[in-house]
């Protein structure tokens, strides 16, 4: 790391300068008075007379450039459930449903762990550990009482597991040393989908922090019998990446890519019910939050009750916490949404909804 030239000057010299300062300061102050003073609010928008970009105008906050290499794209992940973004033939490789007793379904999944470099901010690549090559992993969705069978193959370079949140016997927990699936190995997780609500799954191999923040997590939705009211449904995983491995995140986002939805706003319709599945897996920070501008939303914490518990515009979640949010856009136009930790927002966790008249 480089130090500023100032730090290379000894204390003795700096103190010497202290003396000189008293002579030169008045003249220096005079020299500054004529120039443009820095500070917020003193510039009008638009370019300077000299053609330089105004440092207050034009910058919304955000990474420079666009991410080009992700599959699926964060905007596609947003509305993808049970591999619905794949063509039917390809989808059948990873997801099959078979009717069983009482109108319930057996839902079979194929999930594989694989090491893959992913672009988490324009031009910034992260050596991720992924489920099915994507971060977050595919969103799995069942109805309460369905049988879920997940064949897990570890094609990665380290032992991994899948640990589901939800009711299941200990042998299906994917958390103990004997549950670890070695590279090249496989395991079948099987359980009934319950309770209904918004859940998540993640790797529980040790060291836990590393296995989670490297990208091994996804959303697991269990619908109540009969489903929820029809809505435009969106999945938002609040995640973050420690690119230099100093136990502090450099990139924050929903669905991996910093500031993606600043460039590609989430399209919604005015008046239509919008349901957002928000899950927080952010490692290293105590909490994360979801804040929506110009609007309020109903909160269904963990989604395990059908009655809302809260109506707010800012929701705080600790790691592993999740909530279903429901709202209707009243006005057309752009609505900002972001973590209400300003730091997270400016490090990537910020985007827009674009509401259009139906």
């Amino acid at each position, binding site marked *: *790391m*480089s*130090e*500023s*030239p*100032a*730090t*290379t*000057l*000894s*204390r*003795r*010299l*700096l*103190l*010497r*300068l*202290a*003396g*000189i*300062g*008293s*002579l*030169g*300061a008045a*003249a*220096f102050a*005079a*020299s*500054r008075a004529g*120039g*443009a003073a*820095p*500070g917020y609010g003193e510039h009008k928008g638009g370019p*300077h007379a000299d053609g*330089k*970009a105004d*440092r207050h105008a*034009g*910058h919304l*906050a*955000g*990474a*420079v450039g666009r991410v080009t290499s992700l599959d699926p794209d964060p905007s596609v992940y947003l509305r993808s459930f049970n591999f619905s973004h794949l063509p039917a033939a390809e989808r059948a490789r990873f997801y099959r449903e078979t009717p069983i007793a009482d109108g319930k379904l057996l839902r079979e999944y194929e999930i594989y762990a694989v090491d893959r470099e992913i672009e*988490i*901010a*324009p*031009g*910034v*690549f*992260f050596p991720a550990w992924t489920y099915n090559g994507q971060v977050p992993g595919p969103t799995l969705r069942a109805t309460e009482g369905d049988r879920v069978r997940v064949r897990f193959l570890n094609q990665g370079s380290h032992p991994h597991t899948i640990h589901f949140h939800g009711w299941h016997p200990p042998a299906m927990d994917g958390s103990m040393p004997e549950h670890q699936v070695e590279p090249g190995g496989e395991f079948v997780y099987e359980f009934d989908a319950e309770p209904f609500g918004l859940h998540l799954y993640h790797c529980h191999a040790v060291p836990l922090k590393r296995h989670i923040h490297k990208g091994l997590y996804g959303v697991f939705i269990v619908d109540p019998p009969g489903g929820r009211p029809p809505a435009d449904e969106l999945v938002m995983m609040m995640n973050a*990446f420690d*690119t*230099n491995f100093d136990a502090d995140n*450099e990139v924050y986002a929903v669905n991996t890519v*910093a*500031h993606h939805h600043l460039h590609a706003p989430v399209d919604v319709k005015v008046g239509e019910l919008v349901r957002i599945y928000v899950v927080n897996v952010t490692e290293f920070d105590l909490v994360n939050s979801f804040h929506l501008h110009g609007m309020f939303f109903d909160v269904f914490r963990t989604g395990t009750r059908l009655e809302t518990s809260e109506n707010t515009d800012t929701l705080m979640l600790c790691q592993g916490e999740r909530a279903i949010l429901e709202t209707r856009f009243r006005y057309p136009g752009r609505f900002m949404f972001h973590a209400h930790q300003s*730091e997270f927002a*400016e*490090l990537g966790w910020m985007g827009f909804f674009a509401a259009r008249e139906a």
Partner: protein
Amino acid sequence: MSIADRSAAVRWGIALLPLVALAALLLVIIRLDPAGKLRGDVPPVERLVFERVTLDEGGITARVLNDGPDAVTVAQVMVDDAYWTFTQEPAGELAHLDAATLRIPYPWVEGEAHAVRLVSRNGITFDHSIDVAVETPKPGGRLLGIFALIGLYVGVLPVAIGLLWYPLMKRLGRRGLDFVLALTVGLLVFLFVDALHEGSEAAEAVPGSFQGAVLLVFAAIAAYLAIDGFGAWLRRRRAGESGGAAGAGSRAVVALLIAIGIGLHNFGEGLAIGAAFALGELAFGTLLMLGFTLHNTTEGLAIVAPLANERVALPRLLLLGAIAGLPTIAGAWLGGFLYSPLWAVVFLGVGAGAIAQVVVQITQSMARERGLGELLRSAPVAWGLLAGVVVMYATGTLVG
């Protein structure tokens, strides 16, 4: 072809053969890339250093250099934990020792601290902290004037005041003169150590590829040899003019060399001063100013000490003072506008070498009639040496 010609050709052939073999080996390394095969799948070593960071109404401008062996791409720029818009000139990947300028239109706040962080393609981060944000002075008449004023107070005036001891030198007896000359040596030894210390600190900030410590020592040695050669040339010329032996004339040469040595040292010092001033590292205090003036006044004494037996006209005395003092102003200009630790290392090294040479000069001229051992054992000399270091040390504590 004569026998002599033939043996010369053979000698050239023998001299060039290893070079040809070396060129072939280099070609093999570049073409076949054995290093790449040996390296395997190890991630690249990325190392960017900030050469200079300036602030103006357009935001922050950072000049960065790739100091590592592998290419680095600056993918994103953060300021104070926020991704910020930036442009890079020239754009693209930076190879080993490539430099680029990043312009970041960030609304920095005067007097506060800011942190600039670059994120590479591989997510490696490189940090620079702006400890106190002040607008970087732009080269211009007014600022040249301010730096000239600083140089005047720091270098020129104290040295000129020290020159006022010249008449005293002519009235001192042998023992008194010995004391003053030894005092001068003590002062210079202190400055020598000081320059090496400052230089080695600056060397730590120099990008590793430029090997700051080696550069410091090399600059010192080169300066020593240059001053030594210059002194010898001056003495030969003077001997030629007067037709006599070196004697009295060599004292004048020593005084000139001391002035040059101190001037080079003050140039390095001015460089650092200008840089710190430009970076806004300023505080205020009359006591510190007083200490600084006292500290540097002794430099004038060092110049006139060898001139006790010389008849020196006032213009010549003023010239010596100018040689020693004015470089402070030039240094402050350079440091204020173009500071880099590399320049600081070079000039502090040059200053150290020049001073070392002057110390040797004075000591030799003093030891001409006596041996060095006897010289050091004589009370005026021993006390003078100690007094020189103590004076510098004591006035140094005043300035921190």
